């Protein structure tokens, strides 16, 4: 078993339990142990962009310091938002000396941090550290005839200096799908923002986007859509049921975390907690009759 230090973030303990459970399960299958960071706090969700207020960077940086103090040199995330915030905060410390000094002098309980840690997303782990072969080898139920749209959203690929793929033409999720035996479909809204936190005070705007993105994926032939962001998942999945109320002709599209799709292909669909999804993917995934066969 290979241990990797893992930062879950709040969503994975709350609305995205299936994300974590599936990730843990598929990792296990690949002889990887997701070792949860001992004491973690909120990553801060959104990265703060103001130049003069470093307070807002303390949350994420504190997580990084703890990981370092635990003896890790890499910290892995599943949630795109956490990944983004942690990576950017880390970069800030690394690259902006003035700000780093201020932050360090402010956090006098902790020892100084200079950005030594590497924050990595689980997808990067699969692609670079483990290799797709390792994934492919564990596939028991290849996703034959399943058309999968990969939705990257904003946080995986932007900004450029921390993005894990080409911001205009990302492929990493598509490669994963291929390795699971599925068919990746191209669709034009792969990186279009779902509306993010505006879902709180401007639901209308998010509904519009949800429709654009899910209907766009459908139109491109997708059976399901995968993501790695719990906020995107909420907007695209839960908000789709809201959308159905105002647009009854909308044809719903199941939205999965990419690890859930892995779990299906590995033959463990049950860990996915699909019951918590607003749009049930089981039918599309032809799982309804297979419940009994689940390993």
């Amino acid at each position: 078993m290979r241990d990797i230090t893992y930062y879950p973030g709040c969503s994975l303990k709350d609305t995205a339990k299936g994300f974590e459970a599936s990730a843990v399960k598929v990792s296990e299958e690949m002889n990887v142990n997701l070792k949860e960071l001992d004491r973690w706090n909120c990553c801060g969700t959104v990265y703060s962009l103001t130049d003069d207020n470093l307070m807002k960077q303390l949350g994420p940086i504190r997580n990084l310091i703890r990981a370092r103090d635990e003896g890790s040199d890499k910290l892995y995330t599943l949630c795109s938002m956490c990944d983004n915030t942690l990576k950017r905060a880390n970069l800030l410390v690394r690259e902006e000396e003035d700000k780093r000094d201020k932050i360090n002098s402010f956090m006098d309980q902790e020892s100084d941090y200079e950005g030594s840690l590497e924050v990595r997303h689980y997808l990067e782990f699969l692609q670079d550290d483990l290799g797709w072969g390792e994934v492919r080898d564990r596939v028991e139920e290849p996703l034959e005839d399943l058309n999968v749209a990969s939705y990257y959203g904003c946080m995986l690929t932007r900004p450029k200096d921390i993005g894990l793929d080409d911001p205009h033409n990302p492929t990493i999720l598509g490669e994963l799908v291929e390795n699971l035996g599925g068919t990746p479909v191209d669709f034009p809204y792969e990186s279009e923002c779902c509306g993010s936190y505006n879902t709180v005070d401007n639901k209308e705007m998010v509904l519009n986007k949800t429709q654009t993105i899910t209907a766009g994926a459908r139109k491109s032939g997708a059976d399901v859509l995968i993501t790695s962001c719990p906020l995107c998942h909420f907007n695209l999945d839960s908000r789709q049921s809201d959308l159905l109320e105002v647009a009854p002709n909308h044809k719903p599209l199941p939205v999965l975390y990419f690890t859930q799709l892995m779990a299906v292909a590995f033959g463990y669909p049950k860990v996915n907690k699909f019951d918590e999804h607003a749009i049930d993917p089981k039918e599309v995934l032809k799982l309804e009759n297979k419940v009994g066969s689940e390993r």
Partner: protein
Amino acid sequence: MDLTNSDRELTANVEELSGENIFSCYQCGKCSAGCPFTEEMDILPNQVIKKVQMGDGSVLDSDTPWTCASCLSCEVDCPKGNDVPAIMEAIREISLRKNLDRVDINKLETKGLPEIALVSNLRKKTG
């Protein structure tokens, strides 16, 4: 608008808060072209920047910075490497620091909303 007596402090503030050179924008419009939410905005993102260049205080009344979801489409597109979301944030901050919160947590319908949505929303829209 009266350019002679324009709000030059606004320009300076935005530059300070965002860390960006507002004058480096040459108004190509690519940020607006790629923005997924222009339909929801009253003025275009590039117009926001132009108004800041001009010291046009009316920019503080615009919806655009609040509609911006910091999705960073513009940030990766900008040919001058400007961090447009940071400029938007700076404009939001100017209001927020005057205790002009955009949302009131007490009035929000929070039921069923995930933490991630709530926390990020409040971080962007309250002081």
